């Protein structure tokens, strides 16, 4: 019964998102596109943080790299082909995740957090300090990728409604695939690794390989998000792989409620809408609150850590008649 209620809520949300372009203005359609892109990014991190127990503070490296690949894949002032450049961008991010993952997975716990951060920073300096892609100024993606197959294009990303639906479909797809994956024996193994890696090893699982597969998959999915973020924004800068980006997406995952996927999506919506809300606040007592919105965001994060140990999804336990314990309750 409980299962069906959760499914019902999800389908209702999906329906609402599908209907949004019919009555929303362009601004909101683009805003929700951006949020859904970040939701894909957050879900990819949730696979690592919430399910495998790998707290990565460098996940933006894969997000940012894919954006740069898109900028590079496009001929000057022309559009790249979606069907070629998207797999290429995801493959590059996945490959980077393979290299970084092979190294960082030798560590665990606090080391892992610091080492992932340091590697992302290394990539940041690569793009920031060298001329390979515009340096600190960043690089433009002049045209959105075209979805042409032998001259015929089923949709065009230049149209913001088409773009919205492409991202919505991908969000749903990524969610469904990850759900399926996590319900599979593979998924049970990685959750087992989070709960007790020693025991999984003694059961004969090569945990390093499982973790590496997760790391690469999460990297490739983050690449997918980064690709569309770059396509939508039309601009890539080293900031897209900065540690603020990594910290921000980690915040979405934890705030939403990690180890649930839905929580990551919820977190993306909550954080970005909250950011916009804070930036729209009027001045008070001579202080430009909107300009210094990060002050309130920081306070909000600190408060959330102290008061919401299970994230926003944990709040559903306040719902009358809900006895279901969130999946993350067993964590930590």
């Amino acid at each position, binding site marked *: 019964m409980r299962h069906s209620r959760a499914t019902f809520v999800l389908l209702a949300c999906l329906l609402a998102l599908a209907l949004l372009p019919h009555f929303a203005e362009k601004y909101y359609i683009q805003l929700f596109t951006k949020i859904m892109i970040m939701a894909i990014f957050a879900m990819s991190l949730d696979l690592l*943080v919430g399910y495998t127990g790998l*707290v990565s*503070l460098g996940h933006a490296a894969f997000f940012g790299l894919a954006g740069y690949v898109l900028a590079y894949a496009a001929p000057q002032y022309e559009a790249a082909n979606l069907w070629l450049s998207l797999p290429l961008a995801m493959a590059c991010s996945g490959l980077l995740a393979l290299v970084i993952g092979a*190294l*960082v997975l*030798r*560590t665990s*716990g*606090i*080391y892992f*957090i*610091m*080492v992932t*951060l*340091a*590697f992302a*920073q*290394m990539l940041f*300096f*690569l793009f*920031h*300090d*060298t001329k390979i892609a515009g340096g600190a100024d960043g690089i433009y993606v002049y045209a959105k990728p075209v979805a042409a197959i032998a001259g015929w294009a089923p949709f065009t990303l230049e149209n913001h409604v088409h773009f919205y639906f492409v991202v919505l479909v991908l969000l749903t797809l990524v969610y469904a695939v990850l759900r399926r994956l996590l319900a599979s024996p593979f998924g049970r193994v990685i959750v087992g690794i989070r709960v007790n890696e020693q025991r999984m090893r003694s059961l004969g699982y090569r945990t390093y390989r499982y973790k590496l597969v997760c790391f690469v998959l999460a990297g490739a999915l983050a690449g997918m998000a980064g690709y569309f973020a770059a396509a939508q924004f039309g601009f890539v800068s080293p900031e897209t792989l900065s*540690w603020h980006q990594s*910290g921000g997406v*980690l*915040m979405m995952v*934890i705030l939403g409620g*990690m180890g649930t996927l839905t929580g990551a999506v919820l977190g993306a919506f909550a954080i970005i809408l909250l950011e916009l809300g804070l930036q729209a606040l009027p001045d008070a007592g001579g*202080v430009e609150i909107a300009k*210094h919105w*990060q*002050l309130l*965001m*920081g*306070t*909000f*994060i*600190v408060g*959330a*850590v*102290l008061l919401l*140990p299970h994230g926003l999804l944990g709040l559903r336990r306040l719902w009358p008649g809900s006895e279901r314990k969130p999946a993350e309750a067993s*964590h*930590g």
Partner: protein
Amino acid sequence: MDANTFLIQVLNGIQYGLLLFLVASGLTLILGIMGIINLAHGTFYMVGAYLAFSLSQHFGSLWLAMAGGVVIAVVIGIVLEWLLISRLYHRDHLYQVLLTYGLILIFEELRSVVFGDDVHGVAVPEMLRASIPLNETLSYPVYRLWMSAVCIVLALGMYLLIQKTRLGMTIRAGAANREMVQSLGININLLYRLVFALGVALAAFAGMIAAPVASVFPGMGNQVLIVCFVVVVIGGIGSVKGAMLAALLIGLVDTFGKVLTLEIGGLHILPELSGMMIYVLMAVVLLARPQGLFGKSG
């Protein structure tokens, strides 16, 4: 590169390394003893630099500013530990990351509200303004030598405190077994508060003495924080000795990475990629010793 330039670069590298050590030692102690990963540690370095900037204008003396700044830093450390950090000891590292990330946003924005987003400079104190001439054109500022000397004295003091005093013994015991120390009647909460305040004071002090040579600017804390993470990873968590060695290593690698030129097959490796050098060093150390040079394995 002649002998004098080489000497200057070595001195610069050592001075940068020693400064990193001041920040990283607090980070590694807080990690090793309290098990807290503190992203806001670099922020305290920034707080120190801004304190030096504002207090030295107020008092008209950097010395008074440093004295006052250290007191303020200790108070900040005690209050933060008491209000926030103490609630994180039994929580997952994840929440420590998140809460201290929130603290960074708060401190950075407070800095923006109070001091604005401009770059500031702090004057070198009168008595240390001289330079030691090396030849007709090159000279080395006394202030930098003084910085290195102060860092060495502090490092020695820390070594003595941790290895030779009763307090240090209790701190080491607390790192090994928190419950046992507590059951022996030692107030572990007070001990942790002291360690945290010490770490904050060290980072802030590093920011204060660095202010005259490296201007005071927004985001300076995060820059230092990430380099200090590399120091801690290379040195091994909780090892002050490791932090010292790694900090000196990174100071020298970073300094020489910026002045040497290296070309392989027409590709400019140095100094273009000098920003990446320390991370490459970290990757190499990780491959050989995942627990760091002086870390405990397992």
